[in-house]
């Protein structure tokens, strides 16, 4: 369904050097990316900010023309057959809207029906189905500018799927969403892939999105693919690791704990790494309280930046 073969994209960036001159710099955003996604697969495309994710998506959807390399989506070359491809794909952007700002949500769908030339009966059916799955009923007639982010995202998903595309690209769709909305979106995507066989490429820098949805993930950093394989292995290695950040009443030498290790201290604050399959946060907190007076605490989930760093440095990437 999606085939990228040694995909490259280089930009010329100009920077002002002094009053009148400009200096040129070549930035390679995508540096030889190759992967293939079969029909009906759900793949996560993850990397830190600036890794080249958005640039890849733009090349896959026809917005950008690659500097070199081959790419094919739904059997078409995106750069050359943009309008044809547009009928077969759906795209959801995290920071750009597919909807019409001042008009009721319903109107946006109606307009898209005309843009994509969806036959009336099919449109009604799709809208009913998606409307129910995403629970759009209550706000179908609300102007998009008045919707909450979660509601708007559900609208965007509907907008992208009205014309029954075979491939769905999602570029950071859960950014800024609250937990409830995120869960809703994830459930919907899972069902879409499972029941309808829509091929999904999900770009994100939120690891938990991928853990819950994508059996396969591709890690990209500095324009290169670092890892292309099962999510389970990565999750097992890194996903279970969390950090408990405790603020003690006073500075102390690092605590000694059975199931967690202090990786960093800064005055009264200590960072304790632990694995969720070995202990729970609650147990650990209790253990800390036995040794010292606890003033405040928070829990950090593993960040993609850290996962990437560790994969990059070759730390136990499973075969």
């Amino acid at each position: 369904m999606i085939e990228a073969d040694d995909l490259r994209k280089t930009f010329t960036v100009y920077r002002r050097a002094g009053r009148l001159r400009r200096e040129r710099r070549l930035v390679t955003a995508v540096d030889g990316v190759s992967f293939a996604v079969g029909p009906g697969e759900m793949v996560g495309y993850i990397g830190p900010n600036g890794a080249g994710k958005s640039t890849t998506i733009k090349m896959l959807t026809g917005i950008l023309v690659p500097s070199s390399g081959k790419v094919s989506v739904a059997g078409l070359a995106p750069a050359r057959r943009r309008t044809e491809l547009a009928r077969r794909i759906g795209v959801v952007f995290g920071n750009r809207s597919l909807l019409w700002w001042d008009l009721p949500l319903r109107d946006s769908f109606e307009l898209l029906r005309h843009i994509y030339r969806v036959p009336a009966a099919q449109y009604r059916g799709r809208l009913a189905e998606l409307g129910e799955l995403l629970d759009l009923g209550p706000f179908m007639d609300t102007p998009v500018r008045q919707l909450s982010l979660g509601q708007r995202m559900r609208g965007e998903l509907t907008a992208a799927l009205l014309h029954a595309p075979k491939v769905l690209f999602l570029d950071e769709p859960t950014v800024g969403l609250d937990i409830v909305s995120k869960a809703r979106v994830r459930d919907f995507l899972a069902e879409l892939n499972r029941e309808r066989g829509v091929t999904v490429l999900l770009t994100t820098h939120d690891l938990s999105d991928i853990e819950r949805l994508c059996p396969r993930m591709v890690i990209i950093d500095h324009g290169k693919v670092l890892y292309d394989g099962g999510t389970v292995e990565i999750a097992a290695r890194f996903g279970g690791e969390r950090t408990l950040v405790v603020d003690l009443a006073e500075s102390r030498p690092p605590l000694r704990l059975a199931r967690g290790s202090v990786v960093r201290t800064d005055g009264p604050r200590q960072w304790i790494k632990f694995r969720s399959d070995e202990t729970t946060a609650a147990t650990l907190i209790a253990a800390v309280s036995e040794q010292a007076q606890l003033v405040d605490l928070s829990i950090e989930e593993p960040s993609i930046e850290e996962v990437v760093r560790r994969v990059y440095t070759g730390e136990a990437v499973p075969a």
Partner: protein
Amino acid sequence: MAERLAQLTTYRWLAGASIRARAQYRLTFALDFAAQFVAGLSDFLAILVIFHHLPQLGGWSLPEVAFLYGMAGISFALTDLWIGQLDTLGQMIRLGTFDVFLVRPLGSLFQVVASELQLKRLAKAGQAAAVLAYALANLHIAWSPARILMVAVAIGSGAAIFSGVWIAGSAISFWTTDVQEIVNSFTYGGSFLTSYPINIFGAWTRRLLAFVVPMAFVAYYPSLFILGKPDAVIGQPALAFASPLIAGLTLLAAAAVWRSGVRHYRSTGS
């Protein structure tokens, strides 16, 4: 043919949506409409004041200049009505709206143009039409079928020439979004220029307007033909008949510039 009809339907829906969106801000729409009228009136008042001191400007009487102004004004207002939103292309690119266009199964220029139908421009069209009516009432034109036809042809070609200039000029945003305002010199500048008889402008300006940016074909040559005036500058009034051809060429050139711009945008990002 069916394709064209479908496109027209799509255009109708998209443009209609923009009208509905604007209609929500009734006060602003009413005031914008009034503002357009005031602007047009100001321009014509300047001409009236000039003629307060003179019987003729560059060999043209007040009703004759009013005729020119009216023809050019209607052409320009119609153009602004349907593609004025090209001025926001820079903003569309910066905000990423243009990328959304690229992901849809429609041409990019079509989508930019269809994104809005600026009804407030009808105020300027109405004002220009009123001036034209005044001109026609005060001129003794020897009407012939050719001249009557020329009125319609001139307005249509004029709008097409303005459109071409607007499209080609706006495409500059694909290379750099900062200098959008330069296009105003061509579009609004063109509107100003075409309202006056071309012979009052400097020699090189006249040549520029006849051969490079063909504004002279918007209202000047057609008016020479209709009014039966000799051309004080270059060529013949019969050049008026070249207007549709010039309009077609301008649009073709503009489409090429636009395509080139989109190609550049798609290879360098933003």
